[in-house]
């Protein structure tokens, strides 16, 4: 408590602009991750072929901290990241308390799956803490399992599916064959897409399961040509969260049709090939510092830190409730290098944002696509809009 009071006082002194020589006050943001998080585990890849990158998105947060230096100069603050890990959500809860008590940390970026996020949000419920989800697209976190203190920077599955549905409608590819893998995440993806298809008037002509393997008794489930035969469609939507099967689908379909979803044309939060709205600068900065390309989760971690810095810059940052209220509120403008002023939806804490529909090396479209209208905010055509909201804080 004394610690926190001190910080508040010095921040006020610095803001009052006593002198350029005022010592800078630290502003620490927590960064939490699970040790051995299965989402980053080595792939079940044959012959060591790694088809999905599994980089920890902390690099995005670190870049954002770097970018905050000059804003800090003006505010008399030094932003920094305290990265901690634990092997369970309970362990992370204890780390959160420790960070708050010892370093005055109120804002936490969490790289965790649904269960971790839910558990941490529960733990933080009666404390002055705000959490940021940067890697979990689970739709339940934005509906029945939502939490008032959990902000979602990464887009939800519903948003990604809506973006793809808009693209398919705009392309007049209205009859869709859905292929689905065996994992719960695949089912969730397929469900999200079917909901979007209904919302935008696409027709799912059939939904078929695939399995990875060569069992002759499951030939029709592991042979792409057979799996895609016997019905007509304009495009194939593949729900393959691991990316092990999807990569064999393009060019092997029974009919010459485009493949979208987890493979081929993909909707995402970010892409290294996006060349508008200042994106090349961000991508080049990231690549130069981190030696790799910026991915969706990196972008979300970067944007989460940027949102916190922005709210602190606008409010002074010394009062948690005030800063959190600004961050969640209608005056918040987050510049995510996607050409739109982003802010958090009041009904489910999801960051409203444009999404990028891309191939392996080009961004084909930015959603919401032109022509998809909304009575107040075009970006709210993606994902759960207020009228269909099921989140109750």
């Amino acid at each position, binding site marked *: 408590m004394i610690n926190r009071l001190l910080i508040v006082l010095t921040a006020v002194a610095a803001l009052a602009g006593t002198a350029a020589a005022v010592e800078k006050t630290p502003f620490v943001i927590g960064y939490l991750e699970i040790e051995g998080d299965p989402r980053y585990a080595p792939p079940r890849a044959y012959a060591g072929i790694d088809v999905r990158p599994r980089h920890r998105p902390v690099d995005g947060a670190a870049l954002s901290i770097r*970018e*905050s230096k*000059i*804003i800090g*100069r*003006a505010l008399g603050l030094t932003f920094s990241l305290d990265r901690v890990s634990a092997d369970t959500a309970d362990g992370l809860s204890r780390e959160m308390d420790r960070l708050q008590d010892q370093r005055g940390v109120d804002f936490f970026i969490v790289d965790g799956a649904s269960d971790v996020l839910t558990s941490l949000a529960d733990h933080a419920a009666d404390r002055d803490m705000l959490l940021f989800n940067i890697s979990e697209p689970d739709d339940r976190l934005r509906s029945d399992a939502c939490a008032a203190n959990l902000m979602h920077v990464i887009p939800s599955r519903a948003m990604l599916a809506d973006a793809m549905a808009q693209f398919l409608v705009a392309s007049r590819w209205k009859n869709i064959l859905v292929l689905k893998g065996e994992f719960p995440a695949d089912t969730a993806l397929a469900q999200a897409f079917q909901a979007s298809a209904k919302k935008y008037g696409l027709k799912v002509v059939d939904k078929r399961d695939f399995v990875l393997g060569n069992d002759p008794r499951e030939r029709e489930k592991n042979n792409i040509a057979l799996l895609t035969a016997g019905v007509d469609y304009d495009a194939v939507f593949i729900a393959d969260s691991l990316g092990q099967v999807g990569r064999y689908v393009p060019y092997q379909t029974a009919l010459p049709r485009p493949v979208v979803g987890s493979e081929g044309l993909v909707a995402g939060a970010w892409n290294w090939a996006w060349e508008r709205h*200042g994106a090349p*600068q961000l991508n*080049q*900065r990231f690549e*130069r510092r981190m030696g790799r390309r910026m991915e969706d989760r990196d972008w979300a971690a970067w944007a989460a830190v940027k949102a916190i810095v*922005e709210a602190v*810059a*606008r409010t002074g940052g010394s009062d948690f409730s005030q800063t959190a209220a600004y961050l969640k509120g209608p005056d918040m*403008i987050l*510049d995510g290098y996607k*050409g*739109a*002023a982003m802010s958090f939806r009041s009904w489910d804490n999801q960051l409203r944002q444009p999404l990028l529909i891309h191939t392996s090396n080009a961004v084909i479209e930015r959603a919401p696509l032109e022509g998809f209208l909304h009575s107040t*905010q*075009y*970006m709210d055509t993606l994902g759960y809009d207020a009228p269909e909201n099921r989140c109750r804080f």
Partner: protein
Amino acid sequence: MKGLVTWVLLMLVITPAEAASGLVYVTNEKSSDITVLDSKTFEVLRSFDTCRRPRGVHFSHDRSEFYVGCADDDQIAIYETATGALIGRILNIEEPETFDLSPDGKLLYVSNEEDATVSIVDIEARRVIGDVETGEEPEGVLFTADGKTVYVASEAANMVHVIDTETVEVVADILVDTRPRRFALTLDETELWVSAELAGIVDIIDTASNKIIGDITFLPTGFRKEQVTPVDLLITKDGTTAYVALGRANHVAVVDVASRKIVEYILVGKRPWGLALNADETMLWVANGLSDDITIIDTESLKAIISVPVGKVPYGILIDDQ
């Protein structure tokens, strides 16, 4: 004798006008070339290749040369205004975007988008002689008339930095609205106008206190707030009128400076950014980045006269008619 003096004076007045080539140069960021147009007929005369990703352009002090910043080649190329001939290069400037010339014509302050610095370039020596740390992605650069102060906008940090050119130090950081891009100073330089692209407004800063004292919100009919993304802005020589390019709202706003009221919205091409006025300010040239053309506006009737296709993603415009 008196006749001779009159003749000399007359020559002084006339010569610059005669020296003007009547050419308009447009930098095309994506096709890495410059389109040359006739300032009177609006015809495209030719185009020529430049260094890669040419963006900011500026005349030299006597207008006999002009400078082009090439972001992807880390250099500023120098061209002869009368002919468009390449006559020099200033190398090793990290990703130059926009820049401004000191009033004495000796220095360029160049924003280095990738480096979060502003480089100071000695034009005669053809090299960088210093730099100043800014926020990420510095963009607009503007000198005051006395050359003592330079303003730099930092896009990513939402800040305007005030640089004292004597000490070459930042003397103030002003927090402004989201994604500040370009500047204009009012005639008496008491107000600095800065476009905030993502906030969709122009912030007005009092140059004495370095505080925001007002803003102007734009909203052409049929557009939403989030589609209004102002970038370039100009104030006329008499200080009465401002023009603001509204980006994705595909319009240029005409603003009465004194009352800060919007007089008119003029429909142009897609995503207008760059603006330039001709010498007598009867024509406003607008670079439309996403429709790859230039729109020319008659400032009397406030109507677009013509749009002319140029290269890919036109960025900056220079008009040599004075």
